[in-house]
């Protein structure tokens, strides 16, 4: 293997037996003997091939059930592949989950030692870094308490503080960013950015395209156990966002060539608004055959889907439509995700970069949260008026 390769995955196959009724008792084994057991062999990975170079921050994306987690578990050595193989140049520390091995019945201190030993540290090494871990987790007064008496936030803080101590050739993270509050996520982000600067080899599985764009140097997208796309972060993130726009029954569809993606034009979009302002935008697309429907979604910059609608039965004319929405939203950064579909619901063109805006903090002391709902306080009973559409 070449020196600069960290991981080489070659023609990886993995499937799981999913019997209708899993034989976990002997009676079933004997009673069911002779009867043809209805087994369903589900292929999860079918011929995955790729390489990760040393120093890369490599992203793996894909919709639920696309095989990401299985791939990750094979890289981590938890599952054995059916066919093909993985060659790893160096040592791997995987984080399929934070706080693996934590025992709620043990004190915080004991858990640090237990968890760190599973990451490959000897007792002496943990002694040396124990204070740093406690400092980072900000849990000085709680280390002798049992873990079950910690709040979930405290547990996550402790787990993460141990995890970032892990120094190894290759680190693998699965959706770590999905847990914890905003402050915690910021902390995570800082650590990841440090990894990237220091050329630490990292593999990150995530659903957040914002994270992929911000952190990764290269990415791959899995779909139904095969590599759909591998290469630049921008292309993969676009392809993934687009595949997510496709309404429900997303059968395997070939992604349109890149040129088709950014064709939608948006005009009239400002860069800043106040809560409650009206956003007016004109959406236009080039002449593409078969456009039947358009849809607009408001998305937070961290990838959180806030609100979405589509044109439904409205007949589209002149390859354009006007969209207006009351931005009854809390402060923060947002963007519009716009797509047009054909009559089968397949996404034809798509854009999520042309309208990015910020909602100012209106600094009102009496309002908070992510949305601004119409509300009312009164000293006498409030009559509810049902809205009739």
């Amino acid at each position: 293997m070449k020196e600069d390769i960290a991981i080489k995955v070659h023609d990886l196959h993995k499937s799981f037996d999913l019997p209708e009724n899993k034989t976990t008792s002997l009676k079933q084994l004997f009673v069911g003997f002779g009867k043809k057991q209805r087994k369903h062999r589900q292929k999860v990975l079918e011929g995955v091939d790729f390489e990760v170079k040393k120093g890369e921050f490599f992203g793996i994306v894909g919709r639920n059930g696309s095989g990401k987690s299985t791939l990750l578990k094979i890289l981590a050595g938890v599952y054995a592949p059916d066919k093909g193989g993985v060659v790893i140049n160096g040592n791997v520390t995987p984080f399929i989950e934070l706080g693996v091995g934590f025992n709620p019945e043990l004190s915080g201190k004991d858990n640090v030692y237990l968890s760190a030993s599973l990451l490959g540290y000897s007792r002496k090494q943990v002694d040396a870094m124990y204070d740093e871990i406690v400092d980072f987790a900000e849990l000085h007064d709680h280390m002798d308490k049992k873990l079950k008496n910690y709040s979930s936030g405290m547990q996550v803080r402790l787990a993460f503080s141990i995890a970032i101590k892990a120094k190894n050739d290759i680190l693998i993270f699965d959706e770590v960013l999905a847990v914890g509050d905003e402050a915690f996520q910021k902390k995570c982000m800082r650590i990841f950015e440090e990894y990237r600067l220091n050329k630490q080899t990292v593999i990150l599985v995530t659903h957040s395209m914002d994270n992929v764009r911000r952190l990764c140097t290269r990415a791959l997208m899995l779909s139904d156990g095969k590599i759909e796309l591998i290469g630049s972060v921008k292309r993969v993130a676009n392809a993934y966002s687009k595949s997510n726009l496709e309404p429900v029954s997303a059968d395997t569809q070939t992604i349109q060539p890149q040129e088709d993606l950014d064709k939608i034009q948006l005009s009239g979009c400002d860069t800043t608004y106040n809560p409650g302002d009206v956003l007016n935008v004109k959406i236009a697309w080039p002449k593409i055959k078969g456009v039947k429907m358009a849809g607009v979604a408001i998305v937070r910059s961290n990838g959180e889907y806030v609100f979405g609608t589509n044109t439904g039965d409205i007949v589209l004319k002149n390859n354009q439509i006007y969209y207006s929405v009351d931005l009854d939203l809390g402060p923060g950064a947002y963007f519009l995700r716009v797509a047009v579909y054909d009559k089968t619901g397949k996404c034809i063109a798509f854009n999520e970069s042309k309208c990015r805006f910020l909602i100012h903090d209106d600094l009102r002391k009496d309002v908070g949260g992510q949305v601004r709902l119409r509300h009312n306080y009164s000293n006498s009973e409030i009559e509810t008026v049902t809205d009739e559409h």
Partner: protein
Amino acid sequence: MRYLSIKNRSILREMVSADFKVRYQSSVLGYLWSLLRPLFLFAILYVVFTYVFKVGKGVPHYPVYLLLGIVIWNFFTETTIIGMGSVVGKGDLIRKISIPRYLAVVSSSISALINLVINLSVVLLFGIFNGVELSWTWLLLPVIFIELFVFSTSLAFLLSALYVKFRDVTYIWEVGLQAAFYASPVLYPLTIVPEKYWSWFFVNPMAQILQDARYVFVTKDTVTAWNAGSVWWAAVPLGIVMLTVVVSRKYFKKQASSFAENI
């Protein structure tokens, strides 16, 4: 394979210490229970088998003889029962990191081994107090306990791998242990059984281990695998131990790669 690299040793150490802390932490007497339990059991059985059934009559130092048997049998049941559940019990770990699978079983065996050592020191004191003669053969005890450890741990490996696939192994093993308890001379001396059957008892390695331990520690009057009939008969239980080691190791290794998906 680097069976006990520094990394695996420290995992083992933390697992065992966590095990101990969790097991005894909400009891007032704590670790003392691992001593008191076999002692109470011993007291009950001693009363029953000396005053009611009188099987201990004529056996020199019968109390020591009985206590040693109970301690050995306790280790065997503890290792196999806790070992059986160890892989499934550590499922959370096994599904998420790639620690060597055998560590789950070995850590539970070592917890039981620590208990055994504590219990044996009580047996030793008790033996001296009871007037058991000091003998050079005491030095052979560790060899017998190594055999006991290897045999029990091998069975634990086999059972733990089976348990991943078939959860009723636990019920079968409980019944099996119950039968084996009476088929092994734990409570009674073999002399109450007709002599022509003695050799057959030693097909069971536990009988050989129990009797050998008593021979070297308590009294040379003990019937053993090699003095019950032919000397060569002693090869039978040893052969069975070796067979168990080979079969368990092979089966465990074969199953280990798919533990993560089967648990």
